[in-house]
């Protein structure tokens, strides 16, 4: 199967490294970063592209752009891994639409387009007879979407709750373990490379809320938006609050939860028993699905990282290959 990739950040690099390392039968025919692009219908030498990107800061011909790859390259599936814009979803929405219009499958890790335009994009993919897969948008390497689509097929999903932001989980872990203030724990998270210079997106629960919106729309198709999420972050928590929880055999975690029957869509710090399956240390993510037949299922794993996210993207690509491309 031929693939084209847009976006050469952490995720894009992880995908390329794995394509080069593993014999997956995926041929790269087009690639673009924010400054350049490169097309080769015979297959691009990935090692050379990565070396050039490292040395010169761009991957290909500076006269070419992502649009050239999306509209002209010969590929079966587009890997869209540009940075997330949570407000407009652009330019990723435009990229995805252009590929779908050419009847190309799309795999993305980009939360913006899926949170903002999932309904429209999915309808478009259906109309064109191609797949739009976005496993990597929620909980990194954890195969949430595949579990929902296949493992739990036929189940009614009654509710879900989970830890969907690793940065917050790390900060809360450190506050509880060492009695650090929020500010101290955040500083530590920055030093470890877990938190951005502007941590708002993580610590105020926006990132977790976006993932919750994606999950809710995927499962219940209820058209909820980011503004519908009742959201409280962790930035006002005190070390005393964590100590008081600890004295009661509990701790505090940032939990995203959705329950359509209770009209509940909420991201908030919550008290959990220390033995609760959603209490774990560090930057992991986890999600519990409550279903009618299987009852509760909890998935725990890496919520971020270059190769971890590549795992989700490659899972989607191989699913598309097996389902659509090989058969044709």
């Amino acid at each position, binding site marked *: 199967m031929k693939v084209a990739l847009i976006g050469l950040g952490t995720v894009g690099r992880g995908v390329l490294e794995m394509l080069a390392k593993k014999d997956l039968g995926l041929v790269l025919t087009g690639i673009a970063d924010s400054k350049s692009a490169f097309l080769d219908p015979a297959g691009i030498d990935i090692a050379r592209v990565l070396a050039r990107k490292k040395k010169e800061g761009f991957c290909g011909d500076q006269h070419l752009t992502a649009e050239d790859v999306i509209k002209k390259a010969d590929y079966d599936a587009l890997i869209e891994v540009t940075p997330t814009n949570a407000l407009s979803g652009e330019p990723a929405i435009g990229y995805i639409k252009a590929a779908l219009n050419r009847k190309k499958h799309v795999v993305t890790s980009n939360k913006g387009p899926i949170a903002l335009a999932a309904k429209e994009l999915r309808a478009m993919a259906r109309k064109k007879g191609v797949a739009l897969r976005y496993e990597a948008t929620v909980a990194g390497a954890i195969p949430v979407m595949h579990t929902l689509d296949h493992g739990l097929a036929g189940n009614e999903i009654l509710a879900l709750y989970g830890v969907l932001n690793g940065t917050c989980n790390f900060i809360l872990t450190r506050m509880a373990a060492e009695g650090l203030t929020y500010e101290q724990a955040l500083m530590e998270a920055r030093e470890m490379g877990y938190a951005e210079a502007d941590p708002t997106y993580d610590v105020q629960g926006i990132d977790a809320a976006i993932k919750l919106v994606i999950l809710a729309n995927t499962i219940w198709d209820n058209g909820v938006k980011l503004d519908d999420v009742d959201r409280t972050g962790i930035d*006002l928590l005190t070390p005393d*609050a964590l100590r008081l929880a600890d004295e*009661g055999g*509990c701790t505090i975690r940032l939990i995203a939860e959705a329950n359509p029957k209770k009209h509940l869509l909420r991201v908030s710090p919550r*008290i*959990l028993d220390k033995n*609760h399956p959603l209490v774990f240390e560090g930057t992991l993510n986890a999600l519990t699905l409550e279903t009618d037949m299987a009852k509760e299922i909890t998935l725990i794993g890496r919520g971020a990282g270059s190769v971890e996210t590549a795992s989700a993207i490659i899972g989607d690509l191989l699913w598309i290959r097996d389902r659509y491309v090989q058969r044709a």
Partner: protein
Amino acid sequence: MKLEMKDSPGQLVAALKPISDVGGNIIAVIHQRDPDPDGDTLNVQIVLELPKGRIDNLVSLLKEQGVHIQRIGEERLLFQRTVILIGHLMHTGLSDTVDQIDSTGFAEVTALAMSMPGVNERSSSRITIKAVSREDMEAALAILRRVSRQKSLLLIEPLEDLS
């Protein structure tokens, strides 16, 4: 409740039967043969759930069976939840916050642990609330949510369902 009865065959069954007759649910029966100097009576402790207003009925039925009731300990509030409140708890009237729950009549604050790091700093408290029923607990939490919003306090609720 703690019961004293004759130590003879059939007495325990006779004491348990009225409980189901009044619609009660036996949770545990603790039956210990205390070294009683007389040796002719039996002490039994029974933990049970009883619908509201049935206790008098049960007491008279037990008396008819010749069972002596030594003690009845009643736990009126069955549902318990612990929350954490963060903010300017004293400035915003902590006793008023607690009173808003206590004054409902169906729920009350039964424990409160507090930490106040400095005069102008936000304090944190752990509050245990008990209520008669699941619905009453939800109503009490709804009050607390409203009060927290009004007083700009951060309310941290437990994740688990009521138990």
